[in-house]
């Protein structure tokens, strides 16, 4: 195994291939706090990419209700328990944010390159079984409500929606496991693809990917996965006149929880300082968004703003250290972060850069005892070539219904 640096773990780790990085990396931020699980993303993906024979069970994009829902069923608790078994009591983060446990590469048995399992057919069959099951709590009240109602910061009874696509990992487990080198990571944008001609349907990728995003197509007998809507990211969709466009699942988002883009990488894989790239700001400056199960070691590239109301222990297991910091950053956002978050879903085009024009103070309040001031700043989004895509204000404009339509409802 080669030694590669994984910045999400704060250390070197083992990986079957030498360290190489793409010039840019496909990445996104998902705000779990705002998702309503309408599954518009799932349908947008399905109607675009997985509507054919053999793809009936495939959801390259899915939204599952945590803690119990999952597609395939129990995917995360299964791999977590495999890791716990391989490294009992060792799967921990140290104080400085370094992961001391074993990744799926380091915990692999000798006859495998990656620790994993092949989900059963039954597990693929249900996209969100147990979606309506809440966590257990003691209650003497009627209607099953917790005594004393909800308690903040974390609720006693809770669930939240987790939106999942392929993480287009920097160290993909699927590519590591493929004995045929049929899986590759594109140097231009880091999108991970399965070569449909080279794949021989061994399903080692399905077994290895901890997020379970490669899927076997029983009609073609080879495996497929989320392709990051690469024609859109390349800008070859006619809609945007050649300008890079976000994926179908991102742009279809009703709750406006998703923002996807491309981040520039240094040769060592670290993110190039790009102060005015919205993803760079959210992940590296505001630190409001965190990777999903970074301890797996694949360096996933979808970042999540953790749900505010969920017990921190659970969130730390899911998003690693930095959960409290991220929630604080989200609950009382900095002036800049608040402006950046207005960029979500105002356009289908990828925002490469933003500028902020300061506006007047909108109002003042207290958030958890601290003074919080909101300003009505204007944020301007730019294309790769510097042209403006759109501009929007922090305060949503108030539209007053004209008198002639006042009783239109």
């Amino acid at each position, binding site marked *: 195994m080669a030694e590669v640096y994984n910045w999400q773990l704060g250390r070197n780790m083992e990986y079957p291939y030498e360290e190489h990085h793409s010039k840019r990396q496909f990445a996104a931020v998902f705000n779990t706090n705002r998702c309503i699980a309408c599954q518009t993303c799932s349908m947008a993906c399905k109607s675009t990419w997985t509507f*054919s024979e053999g793809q009936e069970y495939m959801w390259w994009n899915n939204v599952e209700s945590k803690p119990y829902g999952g597609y395939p069923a129990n995917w995360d608790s299964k791999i977590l328990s495999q890791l716990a078994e391989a490294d009992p009591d060792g799967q921990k983060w140290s104080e400085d944010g370094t992961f001391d446990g074993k990744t799926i590469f380091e915990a692999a048995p000798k006859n495998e390159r990656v620790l994993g399992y092949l989900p059963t057919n039954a597990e693929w069959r249900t996209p969100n079984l147990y979606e309506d099951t809440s966590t257990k709590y003691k209650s003497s009240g009627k209607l099953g409500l917790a005594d004393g109602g909800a308690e903040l910061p974390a609720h006693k009874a809770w669930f939240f929606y987790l939106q999942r696509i392929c993480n287009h990992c920097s160290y993909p487990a699927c590519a590591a496991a493929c004995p*045929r080198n049929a899986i590759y990571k594109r140097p231009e944008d880091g999108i991970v693809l399965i070569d449909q001609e080279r794949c021989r349907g*061994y*399903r080692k990728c399905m077994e290895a990917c901890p997020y379970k995003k490669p899927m076997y197509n029983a009609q073609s007998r080879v495996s497929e996965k989320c392709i990051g809507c690469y024609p859109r990211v390349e800008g070859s969709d006619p809609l945007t006149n050649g300008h890079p466009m976000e994926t179908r699942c991102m742009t279809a988002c009703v709750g406006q929880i998703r923002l996807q883009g491309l981040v520039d990488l240094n040769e060592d894989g670290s993110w190039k300082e790009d102060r005015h790239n919205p993803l760079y700001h959210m992940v590296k400056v505001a630190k409001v968004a965190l990777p999903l199960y970074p301890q797996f070691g694949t360096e996933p590239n979808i970042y999540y703003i953790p749900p505010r109301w969920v017990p921190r222990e659970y969130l730390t297991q899911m998003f690693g250290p930095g959960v409290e910091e991220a929630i604080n950053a989200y609950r009382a956002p900095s002036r800049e972060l608040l402006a950046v978050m207005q960029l979500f879903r105002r356009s289908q085009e990828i925002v490469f850069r933003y500028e902020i024009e300061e506006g007047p103070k909108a109002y003042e309040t207290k958030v958890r005892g601290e003074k919080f001031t909101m300003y009505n700043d204007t944020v301007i989004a730019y294309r790769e070539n510097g042209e403006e895509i759109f501009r929007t204000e922090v305060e949503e404009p108030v539209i007053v219904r004209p008198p002639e339509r006042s009783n239109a409802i």
Partner: protein
Amino acid sequence: MRPNTGLSSVAGAATIAALVGFVFFSVSPATRARAADNTRLDQLEKAGDLLRAHKVDGVLPTDPDDAKWAAASEHEVPLVSQFAVAPSAAKLTRSQISVRALYNDSEFALLVVAADATKNDDVSTAGHFADAIAVGFPTDYGEGIPLPYIGMGNEGRPVNVWQWKAAWQTDIDSGYRGVTEAYANRIPRAGPINYVAGKAAGSPLSQTSRTSPVENLVAEGFGTLTSTPSAKLDGKGIYKDGAWRVVMKRPLKPNGVGARIRVGAGLLPITFAVWDGAAAERNGMKGLTRWRFVVFSGENASAKQATPASTVLAGADPAKGKSLVAALGCTSCHALPGVASGGIVGPDLSYAGAIHRPEYLLESIIKPNAIVVPAPGYFDPTSGLSTMPSFYNMRADEDDPDSPLIVTDDDFRDMTSYLWSLR
């Protein structure tokens, strides 16, 4: 005391010398060559390294139950799990197949019988894997041409693989089994648009109509296996009484990319692999066997290209080899039966002789970098070199060229004979 090994020992020493770059010249009269060939064939046969192909008149049978197969002698071939490189079986196991070979002036055919408790021919759901049987040949072979690394070959030494698939056999016998056939009660597809990416990309696995259950492939090292269609590669498999009976046949001269089968020009190196679908075996998870040699009966061909184990290891002492292996610390990385507790860094060598030929085993301990298996632990991805040390030409005092060798040539052959005995 080491027995006096006479000429044979010279032959063994010549093997080592050839390995490390010295050239030996020897001249033999033609009559002696013929006698030598016969001795070689006898020795190969005794070691279980020879498969006799019988010549028959007329067309070679494609049907495993054809009466013509009775003419061919049956050879038992042991297989062990591929364990050199991940992915491999979790547990090392040994199994056995039987092989018969026929040929005529234009074709070559094999009948492989492999016991299998379950018939697995369905790949129409993500959790199902199908049985398969493969036969491999070096694409080039002959005197002075070293054999490729077992299984997938290695750089510069490609292999031609014929893989018969139970799933493809069922495609031919009863039609392609896609999702429509696998889920008979499903609601019919609405709408005319259907795009099967694998098929559109030309994957040989996705083709819904095929004429042969046998796929023609070439490989030149791990991860390089590539399908290359061969119109004339044919076969048929029947599952009966707890066993697959599979015929694979092809014209001697390939129609496309593949090994040329030269009857009357030496021996044909051959190897086999078997996958059990019930155990989710696919890719490197398979049963594999070492290179053997097909001899075409009735052809007066030279056997010079194959070196019998008894020549490579003449006079070598496996018991001494076993104690050397323990003394030199081989077990700190390798599992070896009955020698201390085996390490897990290097490949498990419990069946080393079932999967490798003695000349390869000898080469691998003298020159670990001759063929490097790119597996975690015993391969440095930066340098591309094996992590196994070699004691070749190492002296007790490295500054004194007259000090004794730590491991002598005889020691190497003793160790090889021990590894070869693990079958």
